[in-house]
């Protein structure tokens, strides 16, 4: 064997140098720039080919093969090194315990539904699932729909009891969602069942448990031969769904001119299970809502024949339900607009 040509010595040395540099690359980024430097289009190894004219003709084939071999060797070395680096990084990432889960989260711009809307939506969904229309009636009402139609004639003390906001036009701000009862009867005839949630207004001074504006949900079912037994079943079923637990209910006499018989509906106190506690004022029962069978005069005002059609109705305090569900201590928070309160929902 004759002595190796110079180029052969140079290529062999190059292989050793590239291998060392590849091994020294400590990051994927460094390896990539080394790869470009060695193997890229303008890289050092492809550049060797430009020396072909200076190589002896009989050596040119050997030279070409040697350069190609060098290129393959370096490429393989880079790939091996890359794999090693990737494994190292995977291991490092998997072993990273530096995150502190207690640190403050980054702010996320989220909106907040109003709790009245949330609870109202829940109630609407429950009633919709049971075939109740969800209706919306005016907040400014006529005396007729708010009082006369509900069997509350002009002299009736109920008109004083429910202190009313009167408007210069002679209309009024509805004092209860019951003002929609006769409207619904004219709109849907019979039979039908419906709820109508909304704002109601009372002319009274405000404190932690009284507001001049609050929210109610009226429920009304009109059908043939509606009984107290039906009312009991419907109220237990619906209230269990609304309160998300099985509730025990009881009816006791209550007087409202637009129902007869009229009831106050109590639910068994959840806090003490009926034993008596401060939440239920030691009674074991919590007064929840007024209800009853629709008074024949209201059916008449609704254009229905009371001998043919009957109904039940209830009025649920939506504001109070929101306060119960979320433990809101002051009713005035609901419509006060304070973002610090609303952003908790």
């Amino acid at each position, binding site marked *: 064997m004759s002595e190796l040509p110079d180029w052969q010595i140079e290529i062999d040395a190059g292989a050793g140098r590239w291998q060392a540099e590849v091994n020294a690359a400590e990051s994927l980024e460094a390896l990539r720039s080394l790869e470009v430097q060695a193997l890229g289009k303008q890289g050092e190894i492809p550049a060797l080919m430009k020396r072909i004219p200076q190589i002896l003709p009989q050596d040119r084939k050997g030279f070409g093969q040697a350069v190609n071999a060098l290129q393959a060797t370096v490429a393989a070395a880079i790939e091996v090194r890359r794999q090693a680096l990737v494994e190292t990084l995977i291991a490092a990432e998997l072993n990273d315990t530096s995150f502190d889960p207690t640190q403050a989260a980054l702010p996320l711009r989220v909106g907040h539904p109003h709790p009245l809307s949330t609870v109202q939506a829940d109630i609407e969904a429950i009633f919709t699932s049971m075939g109740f229309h969800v209706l919306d009636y005016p907040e400014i009402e*006529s005396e007729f729909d708010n009082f006369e139609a509900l069997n509350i004639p002009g002299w009736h003390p109920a008109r004083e009891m429910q202190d009313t906001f009167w408007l210069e036009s002679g209309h009024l701000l509805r004092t209860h969602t019951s003002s929609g009862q006769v409207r619904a009867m004219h709109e849907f005839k019979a039979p039908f069942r419906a709820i109508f949630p909304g704002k109601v207004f009372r002319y009274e001074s405000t404190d932690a448990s009284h507001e001049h504006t609050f929210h109610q949900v009226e429920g009304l079912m009109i059908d043939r031969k509606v009984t107290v037994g039906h009312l009991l079943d419907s109220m237990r079923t619906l209230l269990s769904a609304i309160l998300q637990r099985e509730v025990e209910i009881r009816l006791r006499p209550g007087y409202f001119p637009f129902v007869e018989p009229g009831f106050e509906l109590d639910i068994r106190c959840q806090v003490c299970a009926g034993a008596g506690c401060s939440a239920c004022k030691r009674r074991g029962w919590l007064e929840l809502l007024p209800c009853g069978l629709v008074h024949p005069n209201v059916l008449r005002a609704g254009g229905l024949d009371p001998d043919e059609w009957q109904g039940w109705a209830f009025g649920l305090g939506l504001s109070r339900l929101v306060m119960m569900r979320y433990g809101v201590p002051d009713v005035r928070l609901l*419509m006060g607009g304070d*973002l610090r309160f609303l952003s908790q929902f």
Partner: protein
Amino acid sequence: MLVSWRWLSQFVDTQGVDPLQFAEKFTTTVAEIDDVVQWGFGLRDVLVADVLAMAPHPNADKLRLATVDLGGRTVQVVCGAPDLRVGLRVPFVPPGVTLPSGITVRDGEVRGVASPGMLASEKDLGLSDENAGLLSLDGCTAPAGTPLHLAIELEDVLYDVDNKAITHRPDLWGLYGVAREVAAMLDKPLRPFDLELKLGTAMPLAIRVDAPEACPRYTCARLTNVAVAPAPVNARLLLRRLGTRPISNLVDATNLVMLETGNPLHAFDARSLRGNAITVRRAHAHETLTTLDGQLRQLQAHDCVICDAEGPIALAGIMGGADSEIRPDTTEVVLEAANFDAPTIRRTAMRLGMRSESSARFEKALDPVMAEVAARRFLKLCQAWQPQAQIVSQLADMGPFTAEAKPLSIIRTTGTYLRERLGVTVAELSDAWLDACLTQLEFAVARSGDALAVTIPSFRATKDIKIAEDLVEELGRHYGYDNIRSEAPKVAARPPHTPPLKLLERQVRNTLVHAGLTEQVLYGFDDEDTRKRLLLSEPDGAPRVAVRNPISSQHTHMRRNLLPNLLAVAEKGLVQGDDGQPARKGLNIGVFEIGRVFVPEKSDDPGLPPVLVNGTEAEVAAYTAGMEGEMLRGVLDARAGTKPLPLQPIRLGLVFAERLGGGAEGSKLVFPAPEVTHRLLQQMIAALSHLMKWLGRDALTLQATGPEASLGAPDGQPSWRSKLGFDLVTSTGETIGFVAALHPRVRIELDQPAQAVVAELDLRALERVPLFKRVNP
């Protein structure tokens, strides 16, 4: 109203019934009991004592030594009561006894003198707060030394019945009515009143009822030879625990009979009646009367007054006059037991701000029958307390009630109908039970097979019971609502109808919350301060709906736009911070509200059923058929006064606001960099684009609203748009709202340096925006 179980037990046999447990049944059958109070317990060691002698205390001016007889033995104790006198009967508490108040009486010395025991006041015994003197046991005939609870009426249970639960039940404003309910619950007879009296034959005085509609019945009697003195101890203590202050035998008798029968009474000193005559009439304008409480009352023409020959001596059914009240030296009284018209009494009592025990009862529409019962009870009680007293007149009975006795009201129905309303079968609620229950409540039941003719007793007929459904309630509550089988109604399965606007409202709410805005639910009233700061003034803006009785001078009008209130809460949010972030420069918030605004233009909603507005006379007649009395009149009045309601459109309001730097006093004049305003506008546009996409509707385009900043838009839109104001225009060319940056003059009125971009649009108009159909591939 307080009910004494002990008193009640005089009218119905309650043997073996625990009043504490019975209270819950009473609540579910009759009326809610707010509280159950035990009274006069823990006093079994206290004895009746007679004061035999009195001597000064050697070491104290205000204390005295009392020698008392305890029946077979005497004891000397120290006593500080100013009313101590020889011959008094008083309670004696032996040493070692602990009273309900927690005080233990010691066997010790008081200021150097032995005092083995104590003479007690009502307060000492826990019977009331009265502590001015000893409890005088007048009328107690038990021998000295008798345990107190055997000598006088103690150990009672009081029901505090919720007054609001009995507003429709005039009969329950007297103990006797409550006893009737309890008798029905226990299935025991109700003892009738003993009303036998020996009366005179003369008229008590000349009586005229000139206002028969205000005074359906006026009964009256004259009683002589009376002596004003304290009432017997049992009567005094009964009044006390029922919340009424004992005054004298005569006055106490009127109060006791009122509490018993529910019918208020009034006793006049006969000496004071001028002209020996009484007239019941409406007051004359400018008449005055000084009432018992010393107040001079200005009367008006609709007030009902009791007059003697010269003028008013009592405000009928509310309060007597000061000049004719019972005095310590009264020897002859004229008793009034009357029935007055409820609305008349209520109007006068409310106007004069004097809701007395008497007016509270007459307001409930009392049964005229009870006036005579009350008069007789009073006369009997006076004679029982003062055997020397003489009824020198007949019981005069004037007014329309006697002239033409009201025909009895009868409800015709069937057992089947009554059971059907409750949802019970004849096996559960038998005919026999039904008849017995109503009879026990003093309805007269005439049955022919299933058909019933039920006569309403007078004490339920004034307003409480009118129709078959009222009987359903009577049966239901005594049968026990808990005993009614709960039964699912059988209804047609149909998908419910939800108005499209309601569905849209839900979608808008959800979309905007997910887009990072916070929902607000705000008052329907405008806030005048806010409007002033926002330079919104009436002449510039459009008319608003005015409130006749505003809750405050700040809330005189209904809102015509959502934005003023919404901007005010956004402003507050920029001060207080939001979502845990403290307020700081650059704080950026977005809020929205969906709610009604009120425009005083006539809507097409008359607030009356369509038939009353557009129907022919025949249709109206068909509609009102079956209505009667008040109901019919109310409906026809309403028809006559039809007035369309104001427009009440539902709007969507949005505000994006950002806090600027500065803000210390005097540095409110901070002007935002254009980028801040542009960023807020971009946020608003992004939110609206996002909204339209999620609603699946065509995008809205912004159209500049003209070159000039306008303070005072003509159409009721707020007057705050700057040059950066745009109309929101739909793909069909309809303008449904606007977007605007605050006008600089409005902005510098804000409490904090801030910039805001606002938008308000009509929800019904939004619903008309076409659904999005053109999709690019």
